[in-house]
C-alpha cells in the first residue's frame, strides 16, 4: 500500500454523500454541484422502475406468467393485505398506487446499495425524510381533505377521557403524528446505514490485517446476503406502517 490506510475515512467515504463517483478503469467522475452521488442513485432507481413497470410488465396477458407474475404477487399483496385491510375497500384501491410506488422505490434503492459500484441512497437522512414526509402529508392533509378540520380533531382526540385532563392526551396524540413519521424516517435510514457500515468495517479489517483477515471477507459476504433480506423487510415495514398510520387517521375507531 502506498499510503496509510485510514479505516475511518474508508467507511465515511463509502457512506457519505459526495460529488465524485469513482469507477474502476475510468477517471473519477466529477458531479456538478446540483447533483450528488445519492441524486444519481435516485435517478438510476427511477430509471430501473420505469423500465421494469413500463416495458417489462406485460399487461396484455390474461393470465400472468414469468416476470409479470412475480410483480403481480407483490402488487396484489399490497392491495389486498396492506391497502384494503387498513384503509377500507374503496379508499384502499385508491391508495394502492401510492403504496406500491413507495414499496418498489424503496426496494430498488435499497438493493442498488448492495451492488459494488453503487451506493445506497436510502442511507441518506434526506431521502428517507422525504419519503416519510409524503406519509406525513397524507396523514395531515388527507385527513383535512376527507373529514374536514373537525374530523381531523376527532381523529387526534383519544376517546373515553374526562374533559378536564383532555389537553394532555390530545397533545400527546398530536405530537404522536410527527413522532410516527420521524420513526419511519429513522428506521429505514438506520437499518440501511448500519448494514453498510458493517460491510465496510469488515472489508476494512481485511485490508488492515492482511492475509490473516480473510475470514472477515467471508463474514462480509454473508452479511451482504443478509442485507438483501433486510432491504425487502424494511421496504415492506415502511409501507405497512404508512398504511396503518394513514388508515388510523382516515377512519379513527375511537
Amino acid at each position, binding site marked *: 500500500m502506498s499510503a496509510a490506510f485510514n479505516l475511518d475515512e474508508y467507511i465515511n467515504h463509502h457512506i457519505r454523500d459526495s460529488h465524485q463517483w469513482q469507477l474502476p478503469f475510468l477517471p473519477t467522475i466529477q458531479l456538478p454541484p446540483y447533483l450528488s452521488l445519492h441524486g444519481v442513485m435516485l435517478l438510476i432507481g427511477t430509471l430501473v422502475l420505469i423500465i421494469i413497470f413500463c416495458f417489462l410488465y406485460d399487461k396484455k396477458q390474461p393470465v400472468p406468467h414469468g416476470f409479470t407474475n412475480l410483480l403481480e404477487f407483490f402488487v396484489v399483496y399490497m392491495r389486498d393485505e396492506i391497502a384494503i385491510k387498513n384503509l377500507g375497500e374503496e379508499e384502499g384501491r385508491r391508495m394502492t398506487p401510492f403504496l406500491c410506488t413507495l414499496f418498489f422505490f424503496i426496494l430498488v434503492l435499497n438493493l442498488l446499495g448492495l451492488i459494488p459500484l453503487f451506493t445506497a441512497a436510502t442511507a441518506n437522512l434526506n431521502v428517507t425524510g422525504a419519503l416519510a414526509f409524503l406519509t406525513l402529508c397524507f396523514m395531515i392533509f388527507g385527513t383535512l381533505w376527507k373529514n374536514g378540520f373537525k374530523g381531523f380533531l376527532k381523529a387526534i382526540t383519544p376517546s373515553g377521557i374526562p374533559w378536564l385532563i383532555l389537553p394532555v392526551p390530545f397533545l400527546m396524540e398530536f405530537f404522536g403524528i410527527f413522532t410516527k413519521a420521524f420513526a419511519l424516517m*429513522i*428506521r429505514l*435510514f*438506520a*437499518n440501511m446505514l*448500519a448494514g453498510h457500515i458493517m460491510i465496510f468495517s469488515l472489508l476494512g479489517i481485511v485490508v488492515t490485517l492482511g492475509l490473516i483477515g480473510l475470514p472477515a471477507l467471508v463474514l462480509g459476504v454473508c452479511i451482504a446476503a443478509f442485507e438483501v433480506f433486510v432491504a425487502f*423487510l424494511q421496504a415492506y*415495514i415502511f409501507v*405497512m406502517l404508512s398504511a396503518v398510520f394513514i388508515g388510523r387517521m382516515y377512519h379513527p375507531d375511537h
Partner: protein
Amino acid sequence: MHGSLALVGMGLAVLGSSIGIGILVAAALQGIARQPEAMNKIQPLMFVMASIIEAIALFVIILCMLNLNK
C-alpha cells in the same frame, strides 16, 4: 483510558432491545409449536414486530454516533 463514553451508550442500547426480541421470538416459536398450521400467519408478524423493536435500539445508536468525538 482511551475512547468515548458514547460507545458505552451504544452497547447499553442493544441490551434491552435484544432481550425484547428474544422474548418475542420465544413467544412466536411457542405459538408455532402449539399449532404448526399457523406458521404462515405468525412468522411475518414476528418479523414486523422485531423490526419495530429494533428501530428503538437503532435510534439510540445513531444518536450516540453523533457524539462520538467526546
